[in-house]
């Protein structure tokens, strides 16, 4: 049951919103979390994509591992279609966002947000990106206690090694890079991914002779079945909170509900922030208006504090559509870790010599479990995918046209560009002998890049987000350097063919559109609206150096929760 009034309303139950909600609720505040997408794994919504179900959930008793098992099928195409940002109703298409070129924004709707399909990667920011790049008004050291808290909540540990990680580590070592053992990374090198995925049961060691069915309680923790991009319900049969991937719906939502102070209402798209403005004064947020995505009905709820946690695209869109005070940085400064893909393919004999097997079998192990860090430049990470996602990520998109149109003489890759036709089929016939490296660059905030809205281009929730992204010369150079390092590592690991996508800008990691120091102050309260806070990746002052942003977003959201209590309650 949703009340008319709360101490705090949190807009969005994505990666970060539940963290702030948990902090506020722990302090005794009543909290309503409004989420645009569905609530998977909850008994109030046994068929979340087919019927409206219940109204809201306030109890951890509603959470169901069995329902997650049923709804998260791990079938890649179905799950991508199910999770990508759109209404719960399976008959209706995605919510459209305009993105330049043939790139895209990959965000999810639903409780858990984009952590539903993230790969659990939880490194910290590179310290220099916060202390030396000139964007942040606070210091890296301020975040450390919150990192520690989040890492404990999410069971962040070194990722396990399967064949593909061993191959990458060998390549990185042979390319002359050092092993990094640290959480606070200041020098380039390789290391296991700090992953928010519970480590696999030791029974799953290749030497342990396991012949069970990989279900709970026979095995606990990760089952090395890939599938994080498709939601990861493993181990099958486990209660909701024993699922291995610590997406925010598993790590933060249950403790938030256990406080007894939190209500989560899914299928509720916030379209307005209500403010009052005493004459001549700064506006004060007093509530929000939201629309039920199944019925279309519009409701309003009052609150002492409003926390925007709708993500770096929707939070500025909401600000702009709510007609809040103009600020030249609202929506601006978008960073997306301007990325690329570099794919290696191997001959069977070479593989056998390197890793003792003539296949890599990227579908085994965790999706992303090995990384290369380069503060000031960005990062690389190995990616295992099922073949459909592998095809679109590795071959389906390019800013360089088709591979057959491009000359690669003198380049460190054999082919570059989009692949289709016979060449595509030939390369993908080697799916079990390919390893993809995702290039993630430390792109910098530029005011031209970001989210705007325009009258006319609207959906049921008002003008849609129109995104602009054009990397700078420095951004391109950082990405090119990482792509060269990736090709070198693959060659050193024995790859016989290296393919570079030259991907168009695609937003997998999305941040810095409501930056701390520009739109919000050091406590993440808006400069121009009292009692309006932002607790999502949009407040990151830059792209945290190219490291995966979830840990930093959550650490900051935890800190913001404490600041809200200190300031207003």
């Amino acid at each position: 049951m949703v009340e008319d009034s709360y101490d705090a309303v949190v807009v969005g139950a994505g990666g970060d919103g539940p963290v702030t909600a948990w902090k506020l609720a722990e302090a005794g505040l009543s909290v309503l979390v409004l989420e645009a997408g569905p609530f998977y794994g909850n008994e109030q919504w046994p068929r979340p994509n087919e019927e409206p179900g219940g109204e809201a959930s306030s109890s951890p008793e509603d959470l169901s591992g069995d329902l997650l098992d049923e709804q998260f099928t791990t079938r890649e195409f179905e799950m991508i279609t199910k999770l990508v940002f759109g209404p719960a109703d399976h008959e209706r298409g995605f919510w459209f966002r305009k993105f330049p070129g043939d790139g895209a924004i990959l965000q999810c709707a639903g409780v858990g947000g984009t952590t539903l399909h993230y790969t659990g990667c939880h490194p910290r920011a590179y310290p220099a990106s916060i202390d030396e790049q000139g964007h942040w008004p606070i210091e890296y050291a301020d975040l450390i206690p919150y990192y520690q808290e989040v890492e404990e909540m999410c069971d962040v540990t070194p990722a396990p090694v399967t064949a593909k990680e061993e191959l990458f580590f060998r390549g990185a070592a042979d390319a002359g890079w050092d092993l990094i053992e640290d959480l606070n990374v200041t020098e380039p090198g390789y290391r296991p991914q700090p992953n928010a995925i519970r480590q696999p049961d030791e029974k799953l060691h290749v030497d342990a002779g396991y012949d069970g069915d990989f279900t709970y309680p026979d095995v606990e923790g990760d089952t090395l079945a890939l599938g994080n991009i498709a939601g990861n319900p493993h181990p099958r049969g486990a209660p909701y909170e024993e699922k291995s991937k610590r997406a925010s719906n598993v790590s933060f939502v249950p403790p938030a509900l256990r406080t007894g102070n939190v209500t989560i209402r899914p299928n509720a798209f916030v379209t307005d922030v209500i403010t009052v403005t005493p004459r001549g004064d700064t506006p004060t947020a007093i509530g929000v208006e939201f629309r039920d995505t199944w019925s279309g009905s519009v409701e309003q709820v009052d609150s002492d504090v409003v926390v925007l946690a709708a993500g770096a695209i929707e939070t500025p869109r909401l600000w702009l559509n709510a007609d809040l005070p103009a600020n030249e940085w609202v929506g601006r400064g978008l960073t997306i870790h301007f990325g690329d893909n570099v794919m290696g393919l191997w001959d069977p004999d070479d593989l056998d010599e390197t890793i003792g097997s003539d296949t890599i079998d990227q579908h085994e192990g965790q999706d992303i479990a090995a990384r290369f860090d380069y503060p000031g430049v960005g990062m690389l990470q190995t990616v295992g995918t099922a073949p459909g996602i592998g095809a679109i990520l590795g071959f389906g998109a390019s800013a360089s046209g088709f591979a057959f149109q491009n000359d690669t003489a003198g380049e460190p890759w054999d082919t570059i560009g989009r692949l289709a036709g016979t060449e595509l089929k030939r390369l993908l016939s080697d799916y079990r002998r390919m390893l993809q490296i995702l290039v993630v660059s430390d792109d910098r905030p530029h005011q031209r890049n970001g989210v705007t809205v325009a009258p006319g281009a609207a959906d049921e929730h008002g003008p849609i987000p129109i995104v602009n992204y054009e990397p700078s010369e420095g951004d391109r150079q950082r990405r090119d350097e990482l792509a060269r390092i990736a090709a070198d590592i693959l060659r050193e690991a024995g790859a016989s063919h290296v393919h570079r996508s030259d991907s168009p800008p695609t937003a997998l990691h999305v941040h810095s559109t409501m930056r701390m120091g520009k739109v919000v102050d050091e406590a993440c309260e808006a400069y121009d609206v009292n009692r309006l806070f932002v607790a999502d990746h949009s407040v990151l002052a830059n792209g945290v150096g190219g490291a995966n942003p979830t840990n930093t977003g959550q650490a900051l959201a935890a800190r913001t929760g404490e600041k809200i209590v200190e300031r207003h309650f």
Partner: protein
Amino acid sequence: MVTSRIGDWLAVAWQTLTSIGGLLLEFAGIGPDVDPHTRVTFRAIADAVVPETPGLAEELGPEHVPGGLAVDLDEFTVTYVDDGFQLGLPHLGPQGNIPIADPIAHLLDSAALTLLEREDNEREPDLDRALSLLGPDDPSPAAVEEDGIVGPFAKLSRRDRLRAIAIVDEFDVEFAPTDDDLLELDAGLVGQLVIGFMEMIYYSEWQGYDEFTQPPSRRVHPNDRSAVQSWRQTGFPGFANGYAALRGYVGTAESPLGDGDTWATVDETADVRIVRESGAFRENEYDTSGYVEPFPAESG
């Protein structure tokens, strides 16, 4: 409470009405029926993106011969792009989605004409290529030509079709598939849908469903490698609950990261190994005072 019940009743009544409305629209032909020109154009796309490849039989094996048309990839892609984006009206279901396959097909024709004008085509356009893409339910070849069912795109060679799609990426123009008040799509989306998404659909589990458009709780998938043509071609074994694939954790003799028996040595010089037990990352002291930007760091 009474108000809420009335509200529920109204919601159900509205839902019923609009569902019937949707059916009526469908009967009236304003619905998911696919225009023949669109059908042929999407066949031409599928035939270029994932072609039948008899030449791969000897090199890789007979399972690598069939392409997208053999599994009706074209038909599903039309459904997928037409259902992909919506107006945001609840209760209209699929009728509230914006059909964009038709404008995409016409845009590809205009890209084909641009290719021909630039004389960047490798081979001459040929009507027979397009006619070979017709199915048993299509009008006769004579009618096809007369009615404009075959556009310039479908007459191109496979590789020239890809060149035409690459031209679409250059188009800055925007087209509005419905009207200006609803939504504008930029041409870049076209390449993403007809190349990227078509490849993802083909190489995913999609072909194994009885009927993907069923509600999720009623979809049936055999999860059997033999049931999916592309899985037979990639060797993907299907989705599994787990793999006993753990080799261990990275570590060194001095490192806190891992410990225990060695599975393999990764780097002899630096003593990096894969070991049996996991350790933890180090909460290290850090010093960033020597940080230098490796590349230009323009900001603002």
